[in-house]
């Protein structure tokens, strides 16, 4: 079981050199005790201390890196409100080696294009899973090569046939693909291949008991770069397995399950498949392999992933610069709000719904809402006056009227004085903006 920070501290060199990236040995010990960070970042720890601490200091779920920057695992909590989820579910779209090369290239290019820009964020599909369905190792190797030549995304090479993996993996090893599957019948050869090429590998078994046996046996081969597949393909079973694997790893520090987990969908109809995948994004899959490959299917799923993996302690912020909604003109009203994304996008949505082209200026409040910012002294008239000046909005509109949130009506006089703008008190909630905007334009 885990040691306390002080117990770990006793074993450390106490040099306070800071070379591990943490200023003091005590702080480093505390980080290790919390399951964050690795003992290896200390260059001076003795071998004896290393042995004593190795098991206690390892994070509860191993971090597995593969492909082009994909990181799996290294999670520390069961609920995001306990801290945060760290490594967003890696989403891979599958292609089959039974496609001819032309179709394969077309499909890979389609997958490459599954990237999105919304609300100031950029996100996309992370990788491509090449499935061996041809039964022909030579064909699989060729298909893998074609895919690798046409994408920068991470790769997963998936076959139950060790000969196919042996044929395909060496040529693309520099791209550090994830390999699969090592199962009961072939794990020695597949893990040996993975070890030789220094690639992570999926261990697949049917159910948690069998998976436990397989992990123990595979670890005995002297390798630990594993991703787990508990074999279930029904949503309710997969949910149960994902939950148990996470609970055993985090709550019991159960080492055989201290690896990231990959989930496979069972639904063939893409809309059903995305709904199924949403279960695994919320509940503990480190990676998901999908069949759906069109933008309209992927944007909602990747948006959910971005939401669930948002750090609850760090509110998302928007750029505190002048934003315009619609086809703005010199008569367009000017709203000020805060740069907390939820506040900003609520205002933006309602301003848009008013169908009156407008400017919105979010004030930098460190991502807090209007009332919180005001209470914390981050929504002062001086600051808003400066922001108005620096935004250049005065050159864009032919009036000097600014609309402020109803909750801070009290700053009207001071703001008017500091900025020289006429202050109009808007509604308290963004939901009141539509009728407010209409009465403003009619009056």
């Amino acid at each position, binding site marked *: 079981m885990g040691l306390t920070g002080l117990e770990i501290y006793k074993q450390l060199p106490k040099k306070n050199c800071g070379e591990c990236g943490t200023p003091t040995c005590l702080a480093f010990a505390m980080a290790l005790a919390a399951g964050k960070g690795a003992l290896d970042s200390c260059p001076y720890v003795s071998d004896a201390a290393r042995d004593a601490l190795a098991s206690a200091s390892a994070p509860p779920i191993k971090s597995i890196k593969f492909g082009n920057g994909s990181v799996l695992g290294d999670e520390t909590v069961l609920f*995001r409100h306990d801290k945060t989820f760290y490594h967003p579910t890696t989403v891979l779209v599958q292609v089959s080696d039974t496609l001819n090369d032309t179709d394969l290239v077309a499909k890979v290019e389609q997958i490459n294009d599954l990237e*999105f820009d919304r609300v100031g964020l950029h996100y996309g599909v992370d990788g491509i899973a090449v499935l061996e369905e041809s039964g022909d190792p030579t064909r699989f190797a060729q298909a893998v090569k074609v895919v690798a030549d046409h994408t920068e995304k991470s790769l997963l090479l998936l076959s139950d046939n060790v000969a196919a993996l042996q044929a395909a993996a060496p040529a693309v090893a520099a791209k550090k693909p994830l390999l699969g599957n090592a199962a009961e019948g072939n794990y020695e050869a597949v893990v040996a291949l993975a070890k030789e090429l220094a690639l992570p590998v999926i261990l697949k078994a049917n159910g948690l008991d069998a998976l436990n046996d397989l992990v123990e046996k595979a670890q005995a081969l002297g390798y630990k770069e594993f991703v787990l597949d508990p074999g279930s393909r029904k949503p309710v079973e997969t949910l149960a397995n994902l939950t148990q694997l996470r609970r055993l790893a985090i709550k019991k520090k159960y080492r055989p399950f201290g690896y990231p987990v990959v989930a496979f969908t069972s639904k063939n109809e893409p809309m059903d498949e995305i709904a199924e995948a*949403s279960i695994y994004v919320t509940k503990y899959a480190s990676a998901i392999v999908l069949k759906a490959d069109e933008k309209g299917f992927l944007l909602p799923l990747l948006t959910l992933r971005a939401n669930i993996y948002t750090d609850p302690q760090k509110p998302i912020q928007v750029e505190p610069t002048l934003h315009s909604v619609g086809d703005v003109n010199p008569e367009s009203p000017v709203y000020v709000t805060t740069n907390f994304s939820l506040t900003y*996008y609520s205002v933006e949505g309602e301003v*848009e*719904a008013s169908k009156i082209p407008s400017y919105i200026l979010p004030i930098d409040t460190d991502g807090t809402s209007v009332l919180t910012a005001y209470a914390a002294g981050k929504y002062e008239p001086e600051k808003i006056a400066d922001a108005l000046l620096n935004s250049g909005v005065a050159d864009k509109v032919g009036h000097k009227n600014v609309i402020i949130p109803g909750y801070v009506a009290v700053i009207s006089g001071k703001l008017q004085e500091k900025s020289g703008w006429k202050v109009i008190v808007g509604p308290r909630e963004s939901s009141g903006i539509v*009728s407010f905007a209409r009465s403003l334009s009619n009056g």
Partner: protein
Amino acid sequence: MPVTLVKERFPSKVGEVILGATSEQGGTRTSTVVVGGDNLLPFLHFEGKVVNRPVIAMEVTDIVPPWNEAIKAQFGDVLDNPAAWAQKCVNEFGADLIYLKLIGADPEGFNRSPEDCARVVKEVLAAVGVPLVVVGCENAEKDNEVLAAVAEAGAGENLLLGLAEQDNYKSITAAAMVHKHNVIARSPLDINICKQLNILINEMGLPLNRIVIDPMIGGLGFGIEYAYSIMERARLGALANDKMLSMPMICTVGYEANRSKEANASAEEFPGWGDLAQRGVLWETLTATALLQAGASILLMRNPEAVKLVQRNIADLVDAEVGA
């Protein structure tokens, strides 16, 4: 070697709320709906029993709603007839409940009288056999008059009435007590206000098993993560025997998901976002399926295609034959 599973033993469960009343119970519903009752985290059958599956309440409005064409087209010509519309939701789309929203009462819109609103409620009650959720137009003063009239017109039907909020809960709670209905207690993504409001309503004399929590969700892409975590905390609170967090939760999925640009903008407008027919339906669907994982009991939904997908998702998850 067999693995010893980690099974939580929770001291309590989510409270049960019964909606609707059959003729033996003093109403005219052909069946009732029970929500809540689970003593486990959502759908983890190894831990306990899924007593009542989550249900879908389809949204019906008393005037033709300002929704996008892709959704409106699926209802054909019933959108100006709440009774026929509700029938379609139940008979064709399999709605468990009807969520009747009286937006026509809005003083800044049609400004319909409380009597007119009550008449619409009676028409819908006559048209369908499922229990009803009835909410006002979100103008506090007007809603107090409207819901008092609705509560009286629906006496005996064991309606779910909304919305009670921290600064406006008294008259709706009183109306629910007099005419024996249930109340939706809405709090703005804040677990302390949520508890406080439940306490205030309960102190007026409405039993806890007549309250449903509306945590005021954000839709997918617009703060759903706040709702997700508040709901997970509330569910854990309920299971840990916090009685003031133990009510089942209702999520206004159809409303929140469909007011986003992502659910409405065409592929021509945003070529990078893909086909609206897929994106729009999935925007509502994933808002629902994600919140199911956080513990939602009642989903307010709008788009029949999304309803179908979520019905299948729920069916997959409540299948207790497996995963035990």
